[in-house]
């Protein structure tokens, strides 16, 4: 099992045929997928934006399809555009934005419903270092300001070290290590011992 499959188990795109997935004390198997995902935000490497909607509309879309009143949708969308630093480009189409900006729109969309858990599958995989830093800054703010748990899957060691949080290393579908502080923390700890 790879990291993407593990994340799919979290947001119930895939159902576990063995074992249990527990989120916040609840067995995922017992919660309908749609209800589970309403408390989550999901981000992918390829941004999957709606090409004919502006940055504002792409972010708002996630709230609109959950039938949030327009005034609230607007308020939250403006707030998020500010958070992801795209308030000046709110009315641009994805084709008029850079790759990094598009990913920030995708991050904004995942935050519109104020999730308790943010699941990000290689969100910086297609980004240059500068845009990677900006996305990581957004995650940092979301974690600090809203206490949102972020599960971030990546193979980029520098990104893991930049975050310097809890790191779970997977190898051949098994947990190899579970440490705090960065990718090499486990090795450092082992070395210290």
């Amino acid at each position: 099992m790879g990291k993407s499959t593990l994340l799919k188990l979290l947001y119930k795109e895939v159902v576990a045929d063995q074992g249990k997935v527990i989120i916040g004390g609840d067995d995922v198997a017992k919660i309908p997928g749609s209800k589970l995902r309403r408390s989550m935000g999901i981000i992918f490497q390829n941004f999957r934006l709606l090409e004919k909607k502006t940055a504002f509309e792409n972010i708002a879309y996630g709230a609109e399809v959950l039938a949030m009143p327009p005034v609230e949708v607007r308020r939250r969308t403006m707030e998020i555009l500010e958070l992801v630093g795209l308030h000046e480009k709110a009315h641009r189409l994805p084709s008029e934005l850079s790759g990094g900006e598009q990913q920030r729109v995708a991050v904004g969309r995942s935050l519109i419903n104020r999730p308790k858990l943010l699941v990000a599958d290689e969100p910086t995989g297609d980004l240059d270092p500068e845009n990677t830093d900006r996305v990581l800054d957004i995650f940092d703010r979301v974690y600090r300001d809203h206490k949102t748990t972020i599960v971030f899957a990546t193979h980029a060691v520098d990104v893991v070290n930049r975050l310097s949080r809890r790191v779970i290393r997977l190898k051949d579908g098994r947990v190899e290590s579970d440490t705090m502080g960065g990718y090499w923390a486990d090795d450092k700890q082992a070395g210290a011992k």
Partner: protein
Amino acid sequence: MNLWAIFYRLREAREGIARNTWASVATVVLLTLTLLMFGGFLWLNANVAQVATLLERQVQVRVFPLEGTAAEVLLPQLQALPGVKGAKILEGKLVYEQLAPVFGRETLMNALPADAFADSLSVELADPTQATPVVEAIRGMTGVSDVIWGQGFAEVLYRISNGIQKGGIILIIGFFIAALLMSLTAMQLAVLNREVEIQIQRWVGVGPWGIRGQFLVEAFLLGLFSSILAGAVFLYTGEMIQKIIISLVPFMSNQLTSPMLVIGVVLVTGPVLALLGGGLASQRAIGMGDK
């Protein structure tokens, strides 16, 4: 579903229709044509059924008694005959009176004496399609000179009307299936065009019925628009066709089924067909379960 959900679904449906303008126009045109044919056959079928009912009322048997046999003698025998619904005496002088306005009383008096027409009997059948054995039984009765009935005419008309009714039902079912397939194809295209939207809706936690709602609203709008177009065509042409039929077949003047009935059926059928198509298309793409 709250009011905002309806508002957003309507907006998405409008955008979806606008985005695929030509596919939407083609769907509406084909659905309208199908509804027109469906409604047309429905109307024809209803009217043929009316003609059949009318014929049932019109098929009467005239019985002429032998000279010296009073019609009153035959009347109870005819009324007791199996297959006979009723019988009555037609007085000869009444027939004379009926012909007088047609030919002019003076002309008629010069041509025929007032007692030229003997009394006869009119027999109404319980089942007009079973006229032949009843007529044969009447012919075999003592005191009957002749029996007249529109055998060939009635039987041929029955065969034609039955054929049209049966064929009409088959055609209506055929058009119904064609319209359903058309709506299904259009909605499948709409679903394919919105793969990313469907995915995003899933990610943010919209349930299968919520996702399907957008396509159902879109299908409903296309169906409703087609129905209104087809209904408008029936409204404008129905009365005209009715007038033409009445001018050709005056005895049908009070017998024709109103086109309003067909318009009502068409207005309901269009959205229902489109909703069925939309439901089937989205079910295939989205699935029913919420795993």
